[in-house]
């Protein structure tokens, strides 16, 4: 009985931490649990959330993508140039951001899949390369968007802000892709056993290319969505965000060893990170202590995750003698 309960708790560790965090901040800071604030948290989560949903595909195949922070910068920047110099409008800009993301993903995939270089190395290089390209294009000056960009970013459809809609859309598409398409199932298969996947006739190269395209594209779209709420793009935008994005996915149950993770879990993980960030501001904790507090939460969550994996293993160990039942 007792073991059943603890197993259930460990299986749902992220949700439990989430609830604990909500209750804690709700007690410390009145107003934290107000509908407007919770709504705001989801809206602010959309930035990291969309990119984290994309990187989940990469993590599932045992890969890693460190370049997402730079893609978040370069993608919207290219879109901005297209909007300013060719007048493609916001919709056109959005499309350009998607194309730019696909192109950057293709660069990553080329080196990783075709040349067989480790994803860690390739995306570490493109992290510098993509940001460098943007710095060169702007001579490291801030890029200002037209008013219509802000109009898009701050608009709502049926009372729901556009960033939340896009976050939800990304979640639904990713969820269906992972659970109900051949591509999605093959992503899991590669993560479980790359050799066996190859032997099973799965085109592992194609799948791996796909996941890096998805990761870069969602990162570019995520950047575009946040920039559309700010209206300008400075040279440091997205710097270090790769860690937020990876942390969100891992918080949501994705394993860095591949094969384990869901789109749904990642979305929860991203929202959890934003909840903690907002909560820390609400409770008036010393500004300089906040990164430490956030780091602690991530640490505890990841610790719980490995504890969960270990406990589950122990609790599922076969019992030889019947006396364990009582």
């Amino acid at each position: 009985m007792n073991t059943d309960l603890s197993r259930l708790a460990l299986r749902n560790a992220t949700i439990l931490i989430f609830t604990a965090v909500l209750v804690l901040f709700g007690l410390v800071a009145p107003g934290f649990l107000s509908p407007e604030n919770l709504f705001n948290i989801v809206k602010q989560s959309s930035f990291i959330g969309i990119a984290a949903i994309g990187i989940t595909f990469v993590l599932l195949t045992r890969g890693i993508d460190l370049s997402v922070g730079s893609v978040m910068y370069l993608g919207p920047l290219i879109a901005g140039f297209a909007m300013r110099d060719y007048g493609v409008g916001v919709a056109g800009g959005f499309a350009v951001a998607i194309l730019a993301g696909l192109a950057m993903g293709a660069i990553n995939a080329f080196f990783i899949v075709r040349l067989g270089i480790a994803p860690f190395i390739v995306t570490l290089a493109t992290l510098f390369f993509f940001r460098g390209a943007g710095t060169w294009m702007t001579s490291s000056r801030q890029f200002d968007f037209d008013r219509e960009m802000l109009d898009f970013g701050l608009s709502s459809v049926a009372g729901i802000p556009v960033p939340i809609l896009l976050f939800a859309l990304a979640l639904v598409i990713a969820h269906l892709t992972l659970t109900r398409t051949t591509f999605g199932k093959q992503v899991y298969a590669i993560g479980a056993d790359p050799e066996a996947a190859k032997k099973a006739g799965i085109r592992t190269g194609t799948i791996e290319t796909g996941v890096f395209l998805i990761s870069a594209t969602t990162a570019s779209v995520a950047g575009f969505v946040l920039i559309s709420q700010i209206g300008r793009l400075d040279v440091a935008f997205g710097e270090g965000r790769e860690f937020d994005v990876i942390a969100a996915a891992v918080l949501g149950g994705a394993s860095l060893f591949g094969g384990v993770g869901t789109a749904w879990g990642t979305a929860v993980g991203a929202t959890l990170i934003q909840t903690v960030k907002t909560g820390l501001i609400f409770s008036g904790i010393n500004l300089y202590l906040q990164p430490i507090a956030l780091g602690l939460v991530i640490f505890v969550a990841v610790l719980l995750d490995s504890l969960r994996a270990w406990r589950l293993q122990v609790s599922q160990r076969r019992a030889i003698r019947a006396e364990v039942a009582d």
Partner: protein
Amino acid sequence: MSHLLTLQDLSKAFFGVHAVQGVTLNIPEGAVTGLIGENGAGKSTLMNMIGGIHQPTSGSMYWRDTPYTPRDTAAATETGIAFIHQELNLFYNLTISENLFIDGFPKRLGLIDRKAIDSRTRELLKLLDLDLAPDTLLGELSPGERQLVEIAKALHREAELIIFDEPTTSLTPREIERLFEVIDRLRSNGKTVIFISHVLGDVERLCDHIAVMRDGQLVAEGPTSDFGIPEMIQAMIGRELSALFPDRTAQPGAEIVAEAINLTQPGVMKDVSFQIRSGEILGLFGLMGSGRSELARVLFGLDPVASGEIKLGGKPLSGGPQARIRAGLAFVTENRREEGLLMDAPISDNLSLVSISRFGRTPLNLVDRPGIAQATADISDQVTLKAGDISVQPAKALSGGNQQKVVIGKWLMEDPRLFILDEPTRGVDVGAKYEIYTLADRLAAEGGAVLIISSELEELMGMCDRIMVMNQGEIIDTFAEKPWSQKAILAAAFREVAA
């Protein structure tokens, strides 16, 4: 009888060395053909040519009398050939039905048609008498069930020829029984089976025909009734093996090397007590799940024990594996691929792994490379390792028997008092088995104590001074009298006496 597959003077050379040479063999349709031979006899190369992984250097193959030249594994699958390897090609994080359809799902409205794959899977599972829901995650299945899922996958692809490569090594006796029933059923449904195994008793029981390979050539072939196990062995090794087991060279001494007193761990074992003396080989027999491997883990300090005591050389043993290795314990695990060896590292690194700290040179404690080279070369001579340059060749390039020698050899440097060998000859061919037995005998003759854990009763009867039998975490009985009563030992293992 018609032939499904015909091999005509088939050869394969790697860098000019023949792995398979001039094999001509007919695989009769609707029958089980057993393929046996020592490791390195060319069985795998032959099967890889049939499976499209390697292309023959010369010779030809015919599938139902039409030329068959597979370019890759997909072509073999397409033709109707399925492989069931020792290591299964399944994914723990997908459901049974997803595993069956992983290379192509039926779709409805652009998404996977779950109803269709589940109903097809249910059909196939029913054919195999496997009572599982199609949406069960593969990771929750036992090794035996997983293998049946692999067979279901072969049936799903409408395979005509199913090749089993050492299918029984990770199965319990009951699961093996079930697998054989399934193979019988496949045969009566007109499927053709090639069964590769080192377990000659299984081959004799299951197969209609037997083909024996040695040094890349087919050396004997015929209906099973022409073969007895001695004939199979003789054909495999090319000479008469006077005995399967070496003569024991030493008698147990008086000194008690190791002693377990009332080891109890709720849910795992109860009141386990035994003694091993110097020069003694003690066997531990039990069915899968009897607690034999768990006992080894407890002795080695890998798993906790609630009460009881373990003594080595009269002194109580405590702490984790590190402390116990220092106290003189060595443990060769049943899973040498995953736990015992660094597959990609050179043999010498593997051999020096346990004792690496001995080779620190003061003052900086740097690793003494010449010292290691000398010591590992000595060890590799001692265990009669058949390898190239041990400082370069990776462990994975060795045959199963030689890998096992490396695992045993890496402990020798520590001069252990008690050696625990868990399934030391699993997946190892007859010749290498003999060498491993010789090694065990020498460990004992040099004054050590050896505990062999095995599910092969024959090898325990061949090698041990005494045999303990475990069931449900308890020592049921200990046998010491020779000749052994196989019947009594098995009865104890199944607990027919106590029940």
